[in-house]
């Protein structure tokens, strides 16, 4: 029964085609587009409107039709088409990315504030030559992404370039963090909010797990773990983009600069003050013998005390219950 209705519908549809008088417009093929958008194609103002077909075909979108993205051209019959085309909507396929981007500071700048320099998809990914981020030539490949972000954030990039992280990336260490590892790729947030300052600790910890563990033992670590940001988190001492090892004199935590760095919050900090260990480990005798002994001491005292009085109470309770039974529940 269902088949018969389907067949009937098909027949009716085919029969209706000539009756409509004209066939629906056939969308232009990629070759049709390239016929105009060849290497020499320019707008009246002289700006190129060439599309490199070879590069496009080598891109991750190579198998797709031009009109898959330039969707408003699919139904157009008159060519050359008008100058102004509808904006390409990457999110019609990349919906998950679109929803992340929408909440980002970049989308806020672009769509709410109307900031012309705020980036949308193409500003970072390119247009006709988009490569997957795993491709060495991609603008967003792990070791190249800093360059892409740095095309706007030049000051940050200059600072990042001096850091231990950038040096590792240059050496080809693909585990070293680049921009997106801390800031994410699409859901980029303002970095000056309390929430961001605290949340990024987890990013640092995704590589420096033990360092964050030891930080969590400190007053700084505990207050920030509670979600209050008045005290130091990672970047307050180590810097954000210009992170350098303490052995480097330019580092914010180098011997020469430590008093200044601690002094940002602790006014009057001196040489004695900065002997504080921001990453203590009571189990590590070589780091601090006194802390090691304090840890030992309390590991004996606390269980000893509770063990002793736990037993004391239990025995007392049992004996008192016996007494009570003997007296027949009186008193």
């Amino acid at each position, binding site marked *: 029964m269902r088949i018969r209705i389907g067949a009937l519908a098909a027949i009716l549809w085919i029969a209706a085609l000539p009756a409509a008088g004209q066939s629906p417009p056939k969308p232009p093929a990629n070759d049709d587009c390239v016929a105009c958008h060849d290497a020499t194609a320019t707008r009246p103002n002289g700006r190129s409107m060439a599309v490199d077909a070879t590069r496009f075909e080598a891109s991750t979108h190579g198998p797709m039709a031009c009109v898959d993205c330039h969707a408003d051209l699919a139904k157009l019959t008159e060519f050359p088409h008008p100058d102004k085309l509808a904006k390409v909507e990457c999110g019609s396929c990349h919906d998950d990315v679109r929803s992340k981007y929408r909440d980002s500071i970049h989308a806020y700048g672009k769509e709410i504030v109307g900031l012309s320099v705020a980036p949308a998809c193409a500003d970072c990914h390119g247009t006709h030559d988009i490569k997957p981020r795993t491709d060495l030539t991609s603008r967003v490949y792990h070791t190249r992404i800093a360059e892409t972000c740095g095309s706007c954030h030049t000051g940050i990039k200059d600072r990042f370039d001096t850091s231990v992280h950038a040096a590792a990336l240059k050496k080809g260490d693909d585990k070293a963090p680049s921009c997106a590892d801390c800031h994410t790729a699409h859901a980029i947030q303002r970095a000056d909010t309390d929430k961001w300052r605290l949340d990024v600790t987890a990013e640092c910890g995704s590589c420096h797990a033990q360092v964050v563990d030891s930080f*969590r*033992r*400190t*007053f700084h*670590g*505990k*207050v920030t*773990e*509670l*979600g*209050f940001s*008045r005290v130091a988190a990672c970047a307050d001492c180590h810097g954000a983009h210009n992170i350098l090892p303490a052995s480097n004199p330019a580092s914010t935590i180098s011997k020469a600069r430590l008093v200044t760095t601690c002094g940002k919050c*602790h*006014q*009057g*900090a*001196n040489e*004695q*003050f*900065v*002997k*504080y*260990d921001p990453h*203590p480990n*009571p189990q590590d005798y070589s780091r*601090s013998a*006194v*802390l090691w002994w*304090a*840890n030992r001491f*309390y590991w004996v*005292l*606390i269980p000893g*005390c*509770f063990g002793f*009085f*736990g037993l*004391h*109470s239990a*025995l*007392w*309770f*049992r*004996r*008192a*219950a*016996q007494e*009570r039974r003997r007296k027949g529940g009186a*008193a």
Partner: protein
Amino acid sequence: MMPAVIELPRTAKPLHLVRFDRKTRMLHVVVMATFLGLAATGMPLLFSEAPWARVLAMLFGGFHGAGLVHRVFGAALLAGVVFHVADVFWRAFVRGEKGLLWGPDSMVPQPKDFADFYGQMKWFVGLGPQPKFERFAYWEKFDYWAVMWGTAIMGAAGLILWFPVLASRILPGWMFNVALFVHGAEAALAIGFIFAVHFFNGHLRPGKFPMDLVIFTGSLTDEEMRHERAGQYDRLSRAGALSGMVTAAPSPEEKRRARLVGTAGLTLGLGLFALIVYAVVR
């Protein structure tokens, strides 16, 4: 030969005898209130990974508010203990009061305390009668010295953490690490000790349950004293000093207030203790 016991007059209503003077009771209330406040405002940091930590901190207005309350209570507790130590020294050395630093009325551990402890252990396992305790039993002296020790250690560490820049004039910075560790470990010990051991020994154990009001009203009946402080009772009656200790029975209003304060303290303390147990076993 019978000792010369001077019996108190037999009356229809029980006679009440003084155990704690007003100053001592006030000091206990100060220690109790500040201790609870310190525990409640310090625990969010000590157990910062527990799910209730942030909620508890927010009750005091967040990190800033909790820190402020913690410092105020800490200063009050320190002031209370310093006042007490000064008072003891003044009484002992200026006024020349006898029996404060040594003897049956002293808080200083006596040979009898060790004998009492041994006797109590034997009683626990049914090998002897319960010892005749003096004015302060060995577990009460332990409580007292635990508060003294704890306040000294935690007070010193707390002041270092409160004024680190000032402290760094005489101490190296790594002492802040030690101070924080010791402050936390000692806090865990003190909180656990007070809310489990002291609560049990002083209030929750059979015979005292749900609470002993003597620390709030200041007096106990002669019947209670004869049973619980047999050593003190015998000593005082032999010396004929019992009648001088007779005081008015606490009024219903006084008892009501004592019960209210005691219930509030026990409830808050046990509540905080439950949070710790939850954080530890989770």
